[in-house]
């Protein structure tokens, strides 16, 4: 065990830091759940890609830097420290990208990954359906094969970024007689295809961060299938694994929130006098964010030395999502009567963007598989309890 960075790792950190210092927009971008903000974030993805900082873990021939997980963690630390924009193409670069590298054909990789990298094509996820949420195997949207074409009918919902995205990926039932996990196929669909209707769904903050997608005889070439026909479930599990696993939420994000929370508490010391529990909650935020960082580094080191990630990765999403909620709840307590004010309200001095974070933190225990589903997975696959 050696908990110091190597000279190369420190040099890498310096390189990231100085590039970000020169390129991160000085004025915050608008939310990527507005049309203008979406465009701004798409442009930022292109800027990142020009510096080869878009997907540092991707291989060099795809515009990445072949970084290992420790370098990825360092990159993320600098990224969050710099206050760089949120990643509008997260569904693409962190979820579909790794899945494509594992299951995609050479032709698919060459066709899809470069445009994903530049932000020219932004991806929405298409997991859920109205009757297939936690029970994802209940998917009913169909893809009927006619020669070299799939004809897609049905509906997806809660599709993050679908309002302005260019593509979606998801599972469709290719075998009409199949049930549950069998007979599903993973297909990539351009959202400008004839027959597609997108209905935006406003989220808690009023912005359309997700949408319903209706498919009415949408034709997609068979070359847009990822993996074998009928093998969609195992492809999707790999994707979901990336989502719940190490790379969806790096510790840096929560450590920055914990830091801001300590600063908020220090700026409002009278709160601790009237409610000592608040100080304890701030301490807990620091400890848990630090624990999350330590554990992630430990796992990353184990994986870079050839170890495998197991069912224990399901603990990850529960830990950070509940931490995020708790930290924002504490911030709301500190802000007191101002906590409910929107940032532009005339008397909302000093509220920062805590309210927006508080709203978003409500979604953490729900998306990427609810925390109840994660707890079932932990109990059954990690602890070996009976089904």
């Amino acid at each position, binding site marked *: 065990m050696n908990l110091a960075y190597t000279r190369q790792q420190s040099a890498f950190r310096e390189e990231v830091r100085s590039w970000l210092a020169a390129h991160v927009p000085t004025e915050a971008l608008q939310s990527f759940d507005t049309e203008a903000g979406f465009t701004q974030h798409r442009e930022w993805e292109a800027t990142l890609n020009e510096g080869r900082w878009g997907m540092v873990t991707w291989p060099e021939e795809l515009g990445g830097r072949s970084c290992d997980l420790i370098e990825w963690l360092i990159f993320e630390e600098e990224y*969050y420290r710099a206050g760089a924009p949120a990643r509008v193409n997260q569904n693409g670069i962190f979820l579909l990208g790794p899945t494509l590298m594992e299951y995609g054909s050479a032709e698919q990789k060459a066709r899809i990954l470069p445009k994903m990298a530049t932000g020219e094509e932004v991806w929405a996820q298409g997991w859920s359906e109205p009757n297939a949420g936690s029970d994802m195997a209940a998917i009913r949207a169909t893809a009927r094969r006619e020669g070299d074409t799939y004809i897609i009918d049905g509906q997806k919902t809660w599709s993050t970024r679908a309002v302005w995205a260019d593509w979606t990926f998801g599972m469709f039932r290719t075998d009409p007689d199949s049930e549950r996990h069998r007979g599903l196929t993973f297909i990539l669909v351009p959202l400008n295809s004839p027959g597609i209707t997108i209905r935006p769904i406003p989220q808690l903050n009023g912005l359309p961060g997700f949408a319903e997608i209706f498919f009415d005889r949408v034709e997609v070439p068979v070359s847009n299938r990822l993996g074998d026909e009928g093998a969609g479930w195992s492809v999707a599990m790999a994707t979901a694994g990336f989502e719940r696993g190490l790379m969806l939420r790096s510790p840096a994000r929560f450590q920055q929130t914990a830091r801001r929370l300590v600063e908020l508490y220090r700026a409002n010391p009278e709160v601790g006098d009237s409610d000592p529990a608040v100080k304890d909650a701030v301490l807990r935020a620091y400890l848990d964010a630090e624990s999350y960082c330590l554990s992630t580094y430990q796992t990353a080191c184990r994986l870079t030395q050839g170890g495998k990630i197991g069912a224990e990765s399901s*603990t990850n999403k529960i830990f950070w999502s509940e931490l995020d909620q708790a930290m924002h709840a504490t911030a709301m307590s500190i802000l007191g009567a101002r906590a409910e004010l929107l940032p532009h309200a005339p008397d909302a001095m000093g509220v920062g963007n805590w309210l927006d974070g508080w709203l978003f933190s409500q979604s953490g225990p729900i998306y990427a598989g609810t925390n109840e589903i994660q707890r079932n997975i932990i109990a059954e696959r990690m602890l070996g309890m009976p089904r």
Partner: protein
Amino acid sequence: MDFTFSEDQLLFQQTVRDFLVSEVTPQRIRASWETDSGRDPKLWDQLTEMGLVGMTAPETWGGLGLSELDFVLLARECGYVALPEPLVHTALVAVPMLGALGGELAQRWLPAIAAGEATVIVGLEQNLLLEDAHRADLLLIQRGDALYALNPEQCKLRHNESVDPSRKLYAVEICDSAEPISTGAPVQAFTTAALNRGALGCAAQALGLAQRMVDLSVQYTTDRNQFGKPIGSFQAVKHHMANIAVRLEYAGAPVARAAYSIANSEPGASRHVSHAKLVACEAASLAAKNCIQVHGAMGYTWEVDLHIYMKKAWALNNTWGDAGFHKNRVSSWIFSPDAKLGAGSTFPSGA
């Protein structure tokens, strides 16, 4: 950056675990409750033969010259079996303190400890009562800014019964004639070091205790049927267990980091230890709470083994600094103006 234990360290852990699980059974622990000393000399001999008792002592004094980082995984295994013998105390607290004191004390006592011929117990004011003082051949006792090295004749012991029958606790009264071996600033340094090592031992054992309670409860809820199926198949029961697994999963790395920081004299060692003790003891407390619940009435009995581990977890929570003490150590740092917090601040040469 390498946050992994070496193959040797992991192999040693496995060897010790296999030994402890087969030797330190709940039956043997219960048998020890029936003896006067509560301790098992044969078991101590076995631990000595394995080199565990003196392993952190320098080789010149009969030890293996290994570090806190080498021992921390073994301390976890001691927790897993709720080992009553003072192995963690000896290897993590007493031996390093004697090593730091050096001189005649080290020369006289370290080889005797490593040979299994003597037991040395360290008592700080922080701990109201001393475990295993009745077996001590030498007591190193801190009072204020004075440190005493006492033979058993130089102090009076008053036995206090614990809820955990494995814990043999004593109030120590120092005879008036005793003279301190050290006073002032050096004592402060010895005290802090001993406190950190004691707290690290608690944290590591708490991880093992939590794991044992989980293992017992997974087994119980798999075997126990109600409504025609194992109770472990019900989500309410599963989620109790999953909640422990989450807290336990994220307590391991802080404990490893604390051991590393002590072994390498990192400047943040004290707060790293406090972090580790807080989260590991919380994981064990949650394990106790949820595991008794999933055992139902059986968990509330003397007969079922769960209480062996549960009671030890409760006790460790408040020894070598209670939660309030350790929270204050961390929060006085995070609320200080020069604290570096946020992304990239976790490891020293980072941001």
